[in-house]
């Protein structure tokens, strides 16, 4: 069983490593974006799928990391060893602060508070033109220069750069969700009261999960601003947060791999559909309805149903 899983993972990784050889540079860019959004969706899955915390403001940590890296690279120094950790530190710091407020609430109130807190950041990015460029965002963010034989300005090397972070993130998160801490999060999702009387400091678990989710969202935000060379307030707002929730639900909450798949599907659809129409948000809504009706446990749930194995 274990070796079969290991083989499956190795095969998936081999495909991801080999893909640049057969993809056009445009397709490779799309795949890079899928991996970045995959990290973002997995970070939200830690909250939604494992801890049972439906955050509708998860774009905040993605966006604030992207803005931090963008601003530092443009205005201070394009130094990876300074900018990247700074982006993570700010994302983690903001989630540590927001978590204090958000975790006072439960259920749909938690959803509303995370939404409101996220919109505060969006408002700042939108309104503080002299710092953030307002609606125009931050253009021309350079990619980092690393002492590698291949420049990251090229699509291929940059893809592998992102892939490395993707692999690290998925490994780290899959250890976390299997750890005693991660199993306790699932217990909290199922019955908070029960966990309390079993000796768990429920608040502390939820808080650490919230901050960790912010950190990994920050990884995605950092990579995204390097990838895109541009960040605007739309990467902080509710539509982006909702899209992230949809990636998680579409793929299958509480499965890690599912949300990464969900992210790939959403990125792909957005790309295809945006070519034909402007109403992308409408399409997102339709997808949400379809998933809720026909695949409530997501794509991974559908596959597992077919294979007849029960959920973890």
């Amino acid at each position, binding site marked *: 069983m274990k070796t079969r899983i290991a083989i499956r993972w190795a095969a998936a990784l081999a495909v991801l490593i080999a893909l640049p050889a057969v993809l056009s540079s445009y397709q490779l860019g799309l795949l890079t974006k899928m991996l970045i959004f995959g990290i973002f969706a997995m970070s939200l899955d830690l909250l939604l799928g494992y801890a049972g915390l439906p955050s509708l403001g998860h774009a905040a940590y993605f966006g604030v990391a992207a803005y931090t890296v963008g601003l530092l690279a443009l205005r201070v120094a394009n130094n990876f060893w300074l900018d990247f950790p700074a982006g993570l530190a700010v994302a983690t710091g903001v989630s540590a602060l927001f978590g204090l407020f958000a975790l006072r609430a439960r259920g749909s109130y938690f959803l509303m508070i995370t939404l409101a807190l996220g919109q505060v950041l969006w408002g700042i990015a939108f309104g503080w033109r002299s710092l953030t460029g307002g609606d125009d965002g931050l253009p021309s963010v350079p990619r980092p220069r690393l002492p590698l034989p291949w420049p990251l300005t090229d699509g291929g090397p940059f893809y592998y750069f992102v892939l490395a972070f993707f692999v690290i993130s998925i490994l780290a998160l899959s250890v976390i969700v299997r750890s005693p801490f991660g199993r*306790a999060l699932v217990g909290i999702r199922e019955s908070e009261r029960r966990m309390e009387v079993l000796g768990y400091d429920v608040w502390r678990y939820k808080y650490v999960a919230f901050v960790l989710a912010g950190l990994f969202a920050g990884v995605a935000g950092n990579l995204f601003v390097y990838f895109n060379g541009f960040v605007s307030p739309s990467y902080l707002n509710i539509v982006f947060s909702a899209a992230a929730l949809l990636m998680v639900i579409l793929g299958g909450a509480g499965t890690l791999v599912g949300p990464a798949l969900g992210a790939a599907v959403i990125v792909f659809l957005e790309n295809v559909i945006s070519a034909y129409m402007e109403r992308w948000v409408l399409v997102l809504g339709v997808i949400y309805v379809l998933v809720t009706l026909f695949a409530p446990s997501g794509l991974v749930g559908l596959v597992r149903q077919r294979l007849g194995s029960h959920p973890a």
Partner: protein
Amino acid sequence: MMALQIEQLSHSFGGLLALSDVNLAVAPGERLAIIGPNGAGKTTLFNIVTGIFRPSAGRIRLLGQDVTRLPPHRRAQLGLARTFQITTLFPRLTVLDSVLLAVQGLDPVRFTLHRPREAYGHLRERAESLLAEWGLADRCHAVTGRLSYGEQRQVELILALAGAPKVLLLDEPTAGLSPAETASVAEMIRRFSRDTTILLIEHDMDVALELVDRITVLFQGRVLAEGSKDKIRSDPEVAAIYLGTDDA
């Protein structure tokens, strides 16, 4: 030192006085039943003892330590466990996973996040030995929500026992069970270690009388009577409440 000591405890919900000046002391190893009609405040008392509610007034000592202001998880760490009247199990987890959570709750590794749980073999050994001891080993991979009601009650008891509690509160462990299931749950409780102090809320007088050493009767938030089983059985006031001959 008492295992559990409740002093002048009062609690009100808004204007409704749920508990009023309740005093109760339970010696280590003792088994005490708390009986009384619906609304007498029995479950409220349990909720206060476990820290789910903070009392309006009064004090609670657990094994000599004042725990009145401690949150539930800290009390659990001190050796307090409980079951719930309404089953609040982990319905989507397997029986083994549920018991593992209970075992892990009082283990130093409960907050570890850099290694998978499988790395800590002692957790699984303990969970499996608990399931074997209480006769649920063959159900360990079943999803808890799909078990029969009686089996869910057994899981409920095993979760409470997992941390080898010093004080165990059982809130109507046989409520809603068939006579056969009631008998098997009662049998299980009888087998609990005598080192564990037990407080039992029970509607079924026969079950209560059979399992405990002493009885406290709560009525309208007050302690109405207290004493040995014989004393309670012959108490006219208690009989009046249970037979409904009073006009209160």
